[in-house]
């Protein structure tokens, strides 16, 4: 992969659940080292876009390239092995497993597990709460801790691209702030981040570039700061202030 080549490149993808079309010809790309965000209202198709990367379901037209490889129809369990890792909407940690077992699940995607020790240490440093609760059942964690766990689980795979689906959903503002600060730190350590958010304010402040998704199509794109000051974005996604 060349340095100036996009790490993730969606070319005109359209996605449907059965007969219901959700995405209509979406194109976007993420360059290595960038933080890119996709904002949009509820039902715009943000989650669908992320899920289509994992073939759940695959786009019915268009192509997805990751690191130059066409992954459009790669089976779900093979995608993360290429270096994509998803922090899904609603966290989806394994509630009956301990915190440390959940983290170990992130390693499944790696053939080379030699980084496990140091990465685990980094995660516990980023989220000391997880270290304190490492033997506790994950289902007993608070929402914020579960979100930290979901992020930690994804980081265990040492992904080339970290995908996050609404990491701020249902969390107290203070915890959202912690999460975003941590994401900044993760990005500074060299992980490329693509983050899908309804909480546009936080996401745009963090992002290098941003896309706006409305009704299943990209309606606007620009740098994070550009969109933060854009009148339409302000009105629609930032509560008009």
């Amino acid at each position: 992969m060349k340095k100036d080549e996009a790490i993730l490149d969606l070319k005109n993808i359209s996605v449907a659940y059965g007969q219901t079309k959700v995405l209509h010809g979406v194109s976007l790309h993420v360059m290595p080292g960038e933080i890119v965000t996709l904002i949009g209202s509820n039902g715009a198709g943000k989650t669908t876009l992320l899920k289509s990367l994992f073939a759940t379901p695959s786009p019915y037209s268009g192509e997805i390239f990751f690191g130059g490889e066409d992954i459009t129809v790669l089976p779900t369990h093979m995608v993360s092995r290429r270096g994509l890792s998803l922090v899904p909407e609603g966290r989806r940690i394994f509630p009956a497993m301990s915190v440390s077992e959940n983290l170990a699940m992130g390693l499944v995607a790696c053939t080379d597990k030699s980084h496990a020790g140091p990465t685990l240490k980094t995660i516990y440093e980023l989220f000391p709460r997880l270290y304190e609760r490492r033997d506790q059942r994950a289902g007993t964690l608070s929402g914020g801790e579960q979100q930290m766990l979901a992020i930690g689980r994804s980081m265990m795979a040492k992904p080339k691209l970290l995908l996050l689906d609404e990491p701020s959903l249902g969390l107290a503002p203070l915890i959202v702030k912690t999460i975003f600060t941590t994401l900044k730190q993760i990005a500074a350590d060299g992980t490329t981040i693509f983050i899908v958010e309804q909480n546009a304010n936080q996401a745009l402040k963090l992002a290098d570039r941003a896309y706006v998704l409305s009704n299943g199509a990209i309606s606007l794109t620009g740098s994070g700061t550009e969109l933060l000051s854009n009148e339409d974005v302000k009105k629609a996604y930032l509560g008009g202030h």
Partner: protein
Amino acid sequence: MDFYVLGQQIVNGLVLGSTYGLIAVGYTMVYGIIGMINFAHGEVYMVSAYLTAIGLAVLAYFGISNPWLLIGLTMVFAIVFTSLLGVTIERLAYRPLRRANRLAPLISAIGVSLILQNYVQLSQGAKNQGVPTLVEGVFRMGSEDHFFQITYMQMVIIIVAILAMAILNFVVQHTALGRACRATQQDRQMAQILGIDTDKVIALVFGIGAALAAVAGVLITLNYGSFDFFVGFVTGVKAFTAAVLGGIGSLPGAMLGGILLGLAESLFAGFVSSDYKDVFAFALLVGILIFRPSGLLGKPTVEKV
């Protein structure tokens, strides 16, 4: 109540119950991972009984006569072929129906069950088959005419069953493989997204379930000495009852349910009527399903969204 009869029935119950537990594991693990009752599981056990006889015959042909070696090698032989059978059944009869309506794999399972019964009946004959007694000897407690006993074979059954359960429990709780199984059970799609080939995990669960049924099959066959193509039905339904009693989907539940059902059946046979022990076991199944469908260790089912 005669103390010695009670003791004897408890011994018999524990022996019977540990074999129920071994078979119940197959029902409960498969249910846990794909939410389906594998009604062909009893037939898988039945096939392992035939494999026991075949294994013993082959080993005898090679002149092996040490009983412990015979039991060990027959066990390995039966486990290998029975788990292959379990995996094959899943691949051919259930996996193609993974996205179908819930009733479809259930009907498919009944079909597999009929195929196996009839195939075995046609190929091996409908009459009772037998294997020789390999381990003789009993351990007696009590006086000359008031005693209860445990045969060495019964001891072997209990020890092997405990060993098999302990190994299974270790694998499920403490290995990457077991973690993959539990992850698949808790959230299959998320497990896939994290890189687990869930089809392989499901196949593996069928393999493990069949392997434990084979352990039970070898032990029961060596203990009773006789079997026919129909033994899978009653034993299968009993083991299913044990799984439901313990809480279907729960591994410790299957073990506990097996032991409790074995004890209940054996005590009923000893003190009430041995003719009606099956009726009692199935009445118990109906009772649990009505009054405590989630079983002893199961969680009340929450409809998945």
